[in-house]
C-alpha cells in the first residue's frame, strides 16, 4: 500500500463535502444528546419550582385567611363576653336596688309599727295617770272632807284641779 502525505494545501471536493456533512451530523448529535435532555431537565426543574412557589403562595394566602378568621372570631368572642359582663352588671345592680328598697320598706314598716306602739303606750300611760290622779284626788278629797268645809268649796277645788291636769296633758 502506498503511504503518502497530502501537500499542505490540497483542495478536494469530497473532503469538503465530508466536512460539511460532519458538522451537520455533529449538530444533530449535540441537539439530540445534549440540548434535548438538558433542556428537558431544566424545564422540569422550572416547572417544579413554579409549582413550589404556587404552593407556598396558596399556603400563605390560606394562613392569612385563617388569621383574619381568627381575628374576627376573637372580636366576636370579646363582644359576647362584654355583653355578658354588662348584662351581669345590670342584673346585679337591679337586684341590689331591689334588695335595698325592700330593706328600706321593711325598716319603714318596723318604725311605723314602733311609733304606733309608742302612741298606744303613751295613751295607756295617760289613762293610767288620769286614773291615778283621780284616785289621789279622791283620797285628797276624803282628807279634805274630814276638814269641815262647805260643799261648794269642795267642788270648785276638785274641778279646778282636774282642769289643771287636763290642761297640762294637752300641752
Amino acid at each position: 500500500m502506498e503511504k503518502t502525505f497530502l501537500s499542505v494545501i490540497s483542495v478536494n471536493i469530497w473532503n469538503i463535502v465530508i466536512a460539511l456533512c460532519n458538522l451537520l451530523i455533529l449538530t444533530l448529535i449535540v441537539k439530540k444528546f445534549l440540548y434535548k435532555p438538558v433542556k428537558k431537565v431544566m424545564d422540569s426543574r422550572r416547572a417544579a419550582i413554579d409549582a413550589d412557589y404556587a404552593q407556598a403562595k396558596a399556603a400563605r394566602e390560606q394562613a392569612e385567611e385563617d388569621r383574619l378568621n381568627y381575628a374576627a372570631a376573637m372580636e366576636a368572642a370579646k363582644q359576647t363576653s362584654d355583653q355578658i359582663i354588662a348584662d351581669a352588671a345590670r342584673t346585679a345592680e337591679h337586684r341590689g336596688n331591689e334588695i335595698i328598697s325592700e330593706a328600706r320598706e321593711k325598716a319603714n314598716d318596723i318604725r311605723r309599727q314602733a311609733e304606733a306602739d309608742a302612741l298606744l303606750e303613751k295613751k295607756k300611760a295617760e289613762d293610767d295617770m288620769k286614773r291615778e290622779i283621780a284616785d289621789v284626788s279622791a283620797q285628797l278629797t276624803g282628807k279634805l272632807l274630814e276638814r269641815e268645809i262647805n260643799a261648794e268649796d269642795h267642788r270648785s277645788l276638785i274641778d279646778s284641779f282636774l282642769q289643771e291636769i287636763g290642761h297640762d296633758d294637752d300641752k
Partner: protein
Amino acid sequence: MTEEMAPDIHSKHFKAVDRALIALMILPILACMVLKIIYTPATEGVHISGALVFYQNDAMPVMPLIISESQVNSWGVMISILGLCLYLTHGLTARAVTKRQLVAEWIVEKCQNLVNENMGDYFSAWGPFVTAIIALSAFSSLICLLGLFSPTGDVNITGGWAILVFFLIMHYKFRGGFWNYFIGLFKPIPVFAPMNLIGEFATPLSMAFRHYGNILSGAVISALMASALGGLSQTVLGWLPGVLGEIPFLRVGLPAILSIYFDVFSGCMQAFIFAMLTMLNVSGAVPWDDWNARKEKRARRKAGAAQQPAA
C-alpha cells in the same frame, strides 16, 4: 435520591454504563493514534506536510476520494463528542445531584446565552449548531496535543464548514426575495457590483482560511522550533560523551510553552472566532425590512384571494 425518578447513581448498572461512555470518549482518539502509528512511514528529521492519506479511490467522479488523517480524526472527535454528550447527560435529574449535570447545564446555558446575545431571540434554535461548531473546532485543534494531525489544519475541513455557513447566509439573504438581493448588489452605485459579489464569497473564504491558517501555522512553527532546538542542542551540547550528546536537551520545556499558545490558546480562540463570525454573519444576513414587506404582501394577497370567491 428521594425522588422516584432519580436514577441510582451508585448502582452497578449505572457505573457500567458510565465506564462504557468514558471508553466511547477515549477509544476513538486512541484508535486514531494507533492508525497513525501504523501508517506513518519512517522519516528522518522535520517533516512539514498535510494529512496522512489512508485510502484513495480514483474511481470517484470529478476528483479522487481521499480518506486522510483529517477525515478519520474528525470522525474520532465526533464519536468522542457523542460519548461526552452521553456521559454528561447520563443520569440527569430535576434536582441536579451530579457534577457532570452541572457541567452539561453550564455548557448548554452558556452557548444558548451566547447565541441569544449575538443572534437575537429569533435564532435561539441555533444553539446546537453553534455548540457543535465550537466543540468540533476546538477538539479538532486540541487533538494535536496528542500528536495527531489537527483536522482544522486541513483547508478542506474548515472550507466545508465555511461553505455550510455560506449556504445558511445565502438562505437568509434570499428571505427578502431574490430580486431585492440582486438589486442590493448594485448599491450604493452600480460600479460596486463586482466588489459586492466578491464580498459575498470573501466571507466564507476568509473564515475558512483564517481558521486553517492559524492552526497550520501553529503546527508549522512548533515543528520548526522543535527542529531548530534539536539542531542547536546538537551544536551546543554535542561534546557530551556517548548517548548524552545525542539527546536534544534544549527541546525540553520551550516547545511545551509555545504549544500552550499555538495549540491550546490559538485552537480555542479560533473555534470561538469561527462560531462568532458564523453567528454574526448569519444573523446579519436577514433583510428584515424586505422580508417583513414580503410577508405582509403575501398575507394581503392571501386575504385578497380569500375575498375574491366571496365577492
